[in-house]
């Protein structure tokens, strides 16, 4: 999830992702043999299980909202108007939070959706951040689970840093991407890697998307598979992942990253989130 408007993005990224995805999906079958995972002792420090009644808003002690269309479609030419209405964000009564993107005219926008965040309510430096969710689908849909440095209000983007734990283009419902943005490697120059399912898609069942973040590493997981490990050496600029970050969940419609929805894009579209959990490594 980028935060600013970057134009030359779609083509190079698509070209880069596909071969990577194929390789990863092939090796995923042999994950146990190839992956040398460090054993870490995670302690749960924050979570939202979304156990509210149907129609309930997210817990205001944990989540706040971005409302409206931001500046220039939240920097990305996105088309949706973010609201905090239950039509766009609410519990389903079955232990899930549902963010719904709709094709409807609202305050001059052609679509509505929601973006919630823990900014000002919860931040953490390092740890494991995970969300179990089912994505929406369809051309032009852009769901994301991601993090921003809390210093964005003082240092700005991309200096604050951005970690995208899960992003998906609705026209490729079997591919997710994990990325970091920072000074010298933001927008189209972000460090990114895709992970694809073989003969399956991320919108039909729940999957667990996580990063494990330490002083000198960020590791990206889908379910139990580590598909990307980044260290300061992998970056083409300064390592800025050393201060508190907050989390965001949203479903964007349109924008530079994903392209516009077409008349064939099915609406409404839902991202269904089972839980969000944050751990700290116990010493």
């Amino acid at each position, binding site marked *: 999830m980028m935060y600013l408007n970057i134009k030359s993005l779609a083509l190079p990224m698509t070209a880069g992702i596909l071969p990577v995805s194929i390789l990863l999906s092939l090796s995923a079958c042999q994950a146990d043999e190839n992956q040398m995972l460090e054993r870490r002792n995670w302690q749960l420090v924050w979570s939202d299980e979304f156990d509210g009644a149907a129609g309930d808003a997210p817990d205001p002690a944990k989540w706040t909202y971005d409302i409206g269309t931001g500046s220039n479609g939240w920097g990305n030419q996105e088309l949706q108007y973010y609201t905090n209405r239950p039509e766009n964000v609410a519990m389903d009564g079955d232990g899930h939070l549902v963010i719904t993107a709709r094709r409807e005219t609202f305050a001059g926008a052609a679509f509505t959706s929601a973006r919630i965040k823990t900014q000002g309510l919860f931040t953490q430096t390092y740890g494991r951040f995970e969300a179990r969710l089912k994505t929406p*689908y*369809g*051309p032009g849909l852009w769901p994301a689970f991601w993090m921003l440095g809390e210093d964005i209000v003082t240092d700005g983007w991309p200096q604050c840093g951005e970690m995208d734990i899960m992003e998906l283009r609705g*026209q*490729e*419902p079997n591919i997710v991407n994990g990325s970091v943005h920072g000074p010298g490697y933001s927008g189209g120059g972000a460090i990114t890697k895709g992970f694809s399912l073989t*003969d399956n898609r991320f919108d*039909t069942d729940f999957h667990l998307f996580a990063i494990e973040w330490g002083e000198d590493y960020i590791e990206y997981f889908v379910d139990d598979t580590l598909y990307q490990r980044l260290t300061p050496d992998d970056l083409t600029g300064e390592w800025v992942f050393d201060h508190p970050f907050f989390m965001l969940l949203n479903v964007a419609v349109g924008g530079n990253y994903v392209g516009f929805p077409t008349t064939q894009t*099915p609406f409404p579209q839902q991202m269904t989130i089972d839980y969000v959990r944050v751990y700290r490594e116990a010493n």
Partner: protein
Amino acid sequence: MKHTYPYPVTGLILAFTALFFSCERDLNELDPATYPTTAEVFIDAFSGDMGYAAFGGSDVRAFDVDTDVKYKGTSSMRIAVPDYDDPAGAYAGGVYFSNTGRDLSGYNVLTFWAKASRPASIDLIGFGNDLGENKYQAAIAGVEVNTNWKKYYIPIPDPSKLKAERGLLFFSEGPENGTGYTFWIDEARFEKLGTIAHARSGILDGADVTQNAETGNTFTIQGYAVANLPNGVDQRVETAPSYFDFASSDTGVAGVSASGVVNILDAGTAVITATLAGVESEGSLTIVSSGAPVLPQVAAPPPTVPADKVISVFSNVYDNVPVDFFNGYWQFSTAQVFDVQINGDDVKRYTQLNFVGIQFTAPTIDASTMTHFHIDIWTPDPVGPSTVFKVLLVDIGADGAFGGGDDSSHEITINSSMLATGSWISLDLPLASFTGLSSRTRLAQIVLSGGLPNLFVDNIFFYREESATEPAVAAPAPTLPQANVISLFSEVYNNVPVDTWRTPWSSAAFEDVFIAGNAAKKYSALDFVGIETIVSQIDATNMTHFHIDAWSADFNFFGVKLVDFGADGAFGGGDDVEHQVNFEMPAQGQWISYDIPLSEFTGLTTRKHISQFILVGKPTGANTVYVDNLYFHN
């Protein structure tokens, strides 16, 4: 407009079995007790169990194997769509079938790659057309192709139904805007893809439809399935009824068969719903049955227009023109038509009428001299404020054929204020109000539609309403006293002598006539006519007005000239004076009493020797004027 072709296609004019043997398959491997699960339809050749049959009416040579153009491997299927009017066939269409049948229940989608010589929209591509009842036909419609190879997916609505399927692939495509083109299909195979997701289905386009009905009506329910493709786009599949399980909420009111045919059995309400593969389908049909049909007790009023002014499509009173059909059973039309008699009068009874076409092409009707369209209708259906009835007329233009860019049509909507339940309504629609009908020399269709599903129809004809060509009543009788009048012609007054009512130099025909027993002068083919009083010249010096009553069905100009011969009392001599008063666009079909002040005859400076009266009418030489009560008065 693009032509669409009947589907499922039942008429098979020519079927030839193409011998495409695969080298890889040994027939001895086949277990006779079960059906093979072969996935391949066409990779570089057809699997060994397959044959091809072209649809009736199609170009049977449209399909061939192409070794030059292919997506992958050594060859592809090439389909050459003919031009409009190609004698070889009107469209390209056919079935690739398995002679043995296959068990496809382990797959969930038929995929293929396709491209075309130019961007086009293929009418229909699918599977399940088995040259028989096409029980499990499923197809995608309006398949957009262009010059690039692209992969296409036809999700199987319910794979468990395809245990012994013979119809592996079929297509049907007509010319695009009248011209043919070529498309290619390659790598056609059944697959089981985990990236096909979010299957759902529906009937009646997913709508909850309420249908008024009577006992004996039948309805066929159309269904569809939808699945989301690997690119996130939903693909709709036109799905044969046999994939669905139908249910009626009241089987005493309406039954529904496995093939989706709803039969209305009695009065009451029943809701028809469906499931596909055990999952509820979107949409429903609520039948509101009024029970046994209600018929008119009396025949429609017999028309009274003279037969020589009528072109009749359907009436016992007139000779009728040849009619191709009173129901074209067009796609999406649910209408049924029956011939019934009401008190010995033939009537067309329509049921389940959403729209119906009545066609007459051999020959078409030339209604260019007609002025009105007439139809009598009777309905037992309730007429609410929003109920309408519509009449559409279609002219196929100078080319004498449908299409070709010269067709025109117009639809008139009759609103509820003109409609009624249980009584005959005679509609007389002026053809001039069909403004979109740019010609009516080759009328070929009448399309009836609207909100009256049960409709009895009689006396369908075009007719010419002629306005009266002569006055029905006499001109109003003058009331001035004789003493105030010098009359040339009137039954009320003593008339002065008139030399002639038509001088030889006139350009008009003249006749003395009686209108309702009252004498009048009739001038036809009128350009101008001279009336003379030379022998007994009129001294109108004490008069103030000249009066004349005139009646014409067709003049658009009327002029009255008075000529005074002057002091010498003879034509010429340098002292003649005259003046003509003109009336543009006079009213037609009614007596007009012109009472013209003599002061308006400004050139008539003397009026002691008035000797000539000249009447002028237009269109020149093509109008008829009746005149009466010509007199001066004061």
